[in-house]
């Protein structure tokens, strides 16, 4: 890393703060939407007669705000902090940063409006409206996909320029993930939103949407997530990552195997079987790669276990890493045909998705917020006990939700195979759905503790002191 010679600050705290606030609002709305949607299954949905606030619309808001509102804003904030520090130069332009922020939030609002007025696109995790009537070029809504593309191109330029300027150096692991992650984000978004809608119908299109769901998580969210882990964990622990070789294996393993697994979202379907075999095999390979990365991080923590007690950020990071491993371990089983027969189409899938999106990536961003927020607002955390409530409610809630829905999924799958009447399956699921709603309320309660704490910290008058935040150097 080059020394900072100019007197101007390297990192733009204003942009980080903006994105973090937007991310927090999006997460609150998304989780509130998820909670409301879960009430539909219990018969207590608050607006049963409203077309605008129909449960289906609320569901789309839940997933899309989680992905494009919370994760993208959160990761962008994190990148604004990491990239200048790793490259030694500022991002391309602070003004453009404000523009990117505005474009992105506008795209989100336009999506929300689109969902309420039946304008969603039929691409899972990419329901953001095309703005065109399917298969035609008649404009019927704001073309959100186009705005997202513009926002993404600006975002990528913003970070790729400082990275490119530093191309003479050997990059650190975080930047490997960021560079490829940005390239993949552009390719994935274009592929998923254009090809099934305009080019390939039916089963061929399904191969694309399967790959899109998969790549969005695996080639944008995962690289950004691991990138931030490789950046913040050594920074906070004040020691290097345990093994460089394992970092290399982890990165190239992800780059090569991950995108090959896309079709596993539609197994035992009209997509040709040999493509399914390929997707299953490479998915099993990626689980091995994942294990090396997790091992690398836990070996890094060796000798610093007390950091789990002293640093909330480390606690979020490693709790997330454990859940990452659990999800990937689960995936190694669920990707096989033997498991697919039973668990596909059931709540098992929902459990899996929540564990990875909330239990891992949201936890990691909570860790980043925990470490970054006091440094941004220059105030000490308002309340340690609220931080603990946030953490423990989130952990308990997500673990309960994970096992609850996984079991519900298994029972659903077997009842489906044994030709039970469909409404018997619904009847069986309702107690599980109650537990799901309660665990969701725990997550929401935890989040409110966290958000209130952020607010109170920003308003507090206790100045931030860096010395209070150092991890003791001694080994335990």
């Amino acid at each position, binding site marked *: 890393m080059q020394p900072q010679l100019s007197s101007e600050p390297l990192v733009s705290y204003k942009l980080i703060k903006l994105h973090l606030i937007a991310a927090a609002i999006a997460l609150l709305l998304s989780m509130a939407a998820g909670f409301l949607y879960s009430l539909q299954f219990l018969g207590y*949905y608050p607006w049963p007669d409203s077309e605008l606030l129909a449960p289906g619309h609320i569901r*789309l808001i839940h997933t899309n705000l989680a992905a494009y509102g919370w994760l993208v804003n959160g990761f962008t904030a994190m990148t604004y902090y990491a990239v200048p520090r790793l490259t030694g130069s500022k991002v391309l332009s602070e003004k453009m940063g404000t523009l990117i922020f505005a474009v992105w939030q506008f795209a989100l609002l336009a999506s929300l409006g689109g969902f309420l007025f039946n304008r969603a696109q039929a691409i899972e995790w990419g329901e953001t409206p095309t703005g065109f009537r399917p298969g035609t070029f008649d404009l019927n809504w704001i073309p959100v996909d186009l705005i997202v593309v513009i926002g993404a191109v600006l975002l990528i330029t913003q970070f790729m320029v400082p990275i490119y300027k530093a191309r003479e150096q050997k990059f650190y692991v975080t930047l490997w993930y960021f560079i*490829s992650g940005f390239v993949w984000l552009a390719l994935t978004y274009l592929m998923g939103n254009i090809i099934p809608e305009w080019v390939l119908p039916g089963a*061929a*299109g399904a191969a694309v949407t399967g790959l899109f769901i998969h790549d969005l998580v695996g080639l944008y969210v995962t690289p950004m997530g691991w990138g931030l882990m490789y950046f913040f964990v050594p920074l906070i622990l004040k020691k290097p990552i345990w093994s460089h070789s394992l970092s290399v294996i982890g*990165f190239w393993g992800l780059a*090569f195997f991950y995108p090959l697994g896309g079709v596993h979202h539609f197994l035992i379907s009209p997509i040709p079987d040999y493509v399914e075999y390929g997707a299953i095999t490479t998915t099993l390979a990626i689980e091995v790669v994942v294990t090396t990365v997790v091992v690398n991080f836990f070996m890094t923590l060796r000798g610093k276990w007390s950091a789990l007690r002293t640093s909330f950020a480390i606690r979020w990071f490693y709790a997330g890493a454990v859940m990452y491993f659990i999800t990937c371990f689960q995936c190694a089983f669920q990707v096989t*045909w033997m498991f697919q027969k039973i668990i*596909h189409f059931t709540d098992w899938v929902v459990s899996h998705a929540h564990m990875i999106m909330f239990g891992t990536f949201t936890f990691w961003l909570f860790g980043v917020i925990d470490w970054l927020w006091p440094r941004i607002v220059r105030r000490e955390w308002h309340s340690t006990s609220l931080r603990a409530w946030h953490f423990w409610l989130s952990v308990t809630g997500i673990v309960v939700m994970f096992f609850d829905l996984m079991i519900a999924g298994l029972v659903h799958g077997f009842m489906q195979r044994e030709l039970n009447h469909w409404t018997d399956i619904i009847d069986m699921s309702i107690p599980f759905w109650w537990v799901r709603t309660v665990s969701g309320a725990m997550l929401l309660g935890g989040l409110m503790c966290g958000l209130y704490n952020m607010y109170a910290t920003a308003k507090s008058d206790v100045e931030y002191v860096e010395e209070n935040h150092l991890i003791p150097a001694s080994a335990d």
Partner: protein
Amino acid sequence: MERFYTLAFAAGIGCFAVAFVLSIAFPVMSLDNYKGMEYQSLEQLAETPSQSFVDLSTSYPEAFAEAFGEMNSESYGEALRRGRDIYIGQACWHCHSQYVRVVSNEEQRFGTPSTAQEYNNYLNQPHLWGTRRVGPDLAREYGKRTNDWHIAHLINPKNVVPLSVMPAYAYYFNEDGSPKRDGFSLVTYLQWIGSTYKGDPQP
């Protein structure tokens, strides 16, 4: 391995391209070789209005005339397209899948397993296979139920399935139970799903 160009081009574009060829270009080529994979446009699909669409126009002549005017292939196509728009917009496809697998006794529950041929048309672009079944699969719904059943079910699912957790779509229907424009479209689309399957009759 740690240089900008390697990361951007080998990992970024290269790995993505390999995956694209193996998991998209290959199946696309295989599927193209299947027999009976001719693409059907909306005009072709709507050439002959379905019996259920004809029935809707005679059962609710005034409401139908107000919504679509004449009963012909043009209004049928418009109803199919609009019905599908609602099916997508209301996220129906997130709780009802549209493909029957060869496993888990789905053949006995829903009907013949899905084939690639039946999805090669305008109304499956993008496909609506879905990944979750809160409600049952709909790929073999064609011809299984009457218009009346669908209307009663959409107005309030509990009318016909007392334990259902599906939301009610009463706002697509008038007070007297006759469909509005969106109601007609939704029923027409639901009655269409599975009609492109040309195999044996369904159980």
